[in-house]
């Protein structure tokens, strides 16, 4: 008797609908075991993680602030993954976008430059992110180099470059030798939506990006091409779709969104450039993209959920001394379960019972 996997004759829509919930459920079970091993009461721990942040206005805003970069990056990544192109260097594109936009903020510091500064910074961030993402894309298209490895290597390069800038040429002379630029001028800062709050204009930009992505993927030829090239490369070739062009296009789009998210983060909630501006947004966004099933609306929901794990993780650390790394473990386990339960959309298990030896001509 053995268990085997076999392909379903058609995709199961029921499983497609409930699989993210199955994944979250299994993650909660696994994490309860982990909390118990750590000697924490699982119910209290989950309370600190998922309920407490939802009960006060500050945390709710903070979740939306954290969800902003996650969703923006994940939307871009979803274009890549739908087209079966593997950009895993969004973290680097995020950092380079932040650096490029900050360049203008640093150069116009104290010059009372006017209101064109912030829009120009956002454009610079997006453009730099796109250009940085084009390096692995062109390496893949021109030379056939694996975009997975090149895009990841460039994350380390971007990280070191940012480190160099804030410790060297861009360091705030009045900053007590801390590796940071001076606080950006008000004209170089993303404005908050409500006076005294944390929620900023970037949140609105993120919602616009989600809406635009929905239209692009669902209602335009380009969106259709992306999905066909990923799902059925042979059919796409017969259809005359240019797969190389799509590699470049999806990489550029995801790089631009990651770069934009980067400069918004720096010019918004942080307010200056410093090392460690990202707690791994570029990597967590990969989870967001898959948990949201590479669908813009799904990604929006998934982005909020993962933002909740960041905030909940911080609160659980303060309230229950649960190590911050638990959040990463949580995110990793969640991605595993999401991928595993998605597999059951196209496959199913069957129990094979080997036929008994036929005895004395009963057959």
């Amino acid at each position, binding site marked *: 008797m053995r268990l*085997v*996997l*076999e*392909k379903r004759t058609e995709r199961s829509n029921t499983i497609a609908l409930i699989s993210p919930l199955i994944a979250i459920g299994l993650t909660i079970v696994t994490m309860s075991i982990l909390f118990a091993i750590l000697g924490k009461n699982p119910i209290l721990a989950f309370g600190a993680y998922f309920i407490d942040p939802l009960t006060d206005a500050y945390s709710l805003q903070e979740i939306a602030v954290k969800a902003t970069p996650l969703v923006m990056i994940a939307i871009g990544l979803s274009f890549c993954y739908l087209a079966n192109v*593997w950009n*895993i260097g969004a973290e680097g594109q995020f950092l380079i976008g932040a650096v490029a936009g900050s360049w203008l903020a640093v150069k116009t510091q104290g010059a009372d430059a006017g209101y064109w500064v912030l829009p120009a910074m956002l454009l610079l961030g997006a453009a730099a992110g796109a250009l940085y993402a084009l*390096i692995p894309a062109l*390496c893949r298209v*021109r*030379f*056939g*180099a*694996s975009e*997975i*490895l*090149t895009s*990841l*290597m*460039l994350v*380390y*390069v971007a990280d*070191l*470059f940012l*480190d*160099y800038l804030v*410790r*060297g040429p861009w360091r705030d002379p009045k900053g007590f030798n801390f590796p940071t630029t001076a606080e950006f001028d008000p004209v170089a800062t993303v404005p908050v939506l409500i006076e005294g709050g944390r929620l900023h204009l970037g949140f609105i930009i993120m919602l616009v990006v989600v809406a635009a992505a929905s239209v692009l993927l669902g209602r335009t030829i380009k969106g259709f091409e992306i999905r066909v090239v990923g799902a059925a490369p042979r059919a796409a070739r017969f259809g005359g779709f240019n797969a190389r062009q799509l590699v470049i296009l999806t990489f550029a789009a995801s790089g631009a969104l990651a770069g934009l998210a980067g400069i918004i983060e720096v010019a918004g909630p942080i307010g200056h450039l410093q090392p460690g501006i990202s707690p791994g947004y570029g*990597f*967590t966004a*990969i*989870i967001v993209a*898959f948990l949201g099933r590479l669908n813009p609306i799904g990604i929006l929901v998934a982005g909020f959920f993962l933002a909740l794990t960041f905030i909940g993780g911080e609160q659980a650390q303060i309230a229950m001394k649960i*190590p*911050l*790394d*638990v*959040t*990463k*473990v*949580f*995110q*990793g*386990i969640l*991605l*595993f379960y999401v*991928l*595993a339960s*998605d*597999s*059951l959309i196209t*496959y199913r298990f069957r129990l*094979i019972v080997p036929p008994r030896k036929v005895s004395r001509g009963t057959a």
Partner: protein
Amino acid sequence: MELLEAIILSVLAASTPLLIAATGELVTERSGVLNLGVEGMMIVGAACGFGGALYTGSITIGAICGIFAGTLLALIFAVMTLGLAVNQVATGLALTILGIGLSGLIGAGFVGERITPAPHLRIPGLTDLPLMGRIVFGEDAFVYASLVLIVGIWWFLYKTRAGLILRACGDNHLSAHALGYPVLRIRLFAVMFGGACAGLAGAYLPLAYTPFFIPGMTAGRGWIALALVVFSSWRPGRLVVGAYLFGAVTILQLHAQGAGIGVPSQFMSALPYLATVIVLVLLSRARSGGSTAPAALGTVFVPDR
């Protein structure tokens, strides 16, 4: 000469984890499975290896803990990609994310602790020979093990029937299946071997390279090991050359930083990563005629009956 000897010694030490991890991944990929989780398996191997050595005082037990941890993570990967036919790229990424979190959790109590690093071989007379003495006869056990490992894998892949079957699975799983070979089981062993090697490579870092554990101490070495497998065209001989070349780049940039050559240290630190990108591009370009990768690499196999 003293300096040259010191440089060669440190190049060997820096190359060893790359070589061990890449050897494991080479076997995994030769069976047709692309496991991108090397970095995750390495970092957990580092945390568990250090923990094992810290509590027992034995480097050997530390190394075994590292191997065990890497194998266990590889097993999760195998269940997902072989058992559930999940996309290997996405699963590998998940493994890395999980591994980084787990290592932080496991290693949280180890930060600031120190152990006595793995002893170096000492043969009176031979080790004291000028020039080559310490380089050939004065390494730690990991360095020798890595060389035995890669020669053993070369012999296994090209000189044994089992190696031939493993390569067949990687090049055409349908044919291998049709001939009656248990493709999934062979791949399971290959993936677990890859995990064991990655775990050992990770454990090498806190057990021999630096005698302490810091979170994220693998610093992308797992990804460089993956790039090395591409660099080697999936051949053990070239893998050795590649690993030592990369070790040399790492060490030379460190020495250049130490000598203060007027280039910001961050630019020098970025060199190994930039070198990886450049090498990947040059190699892929030279190979434009045809790929040398195992033909079934990264593809899902669900046997039909």
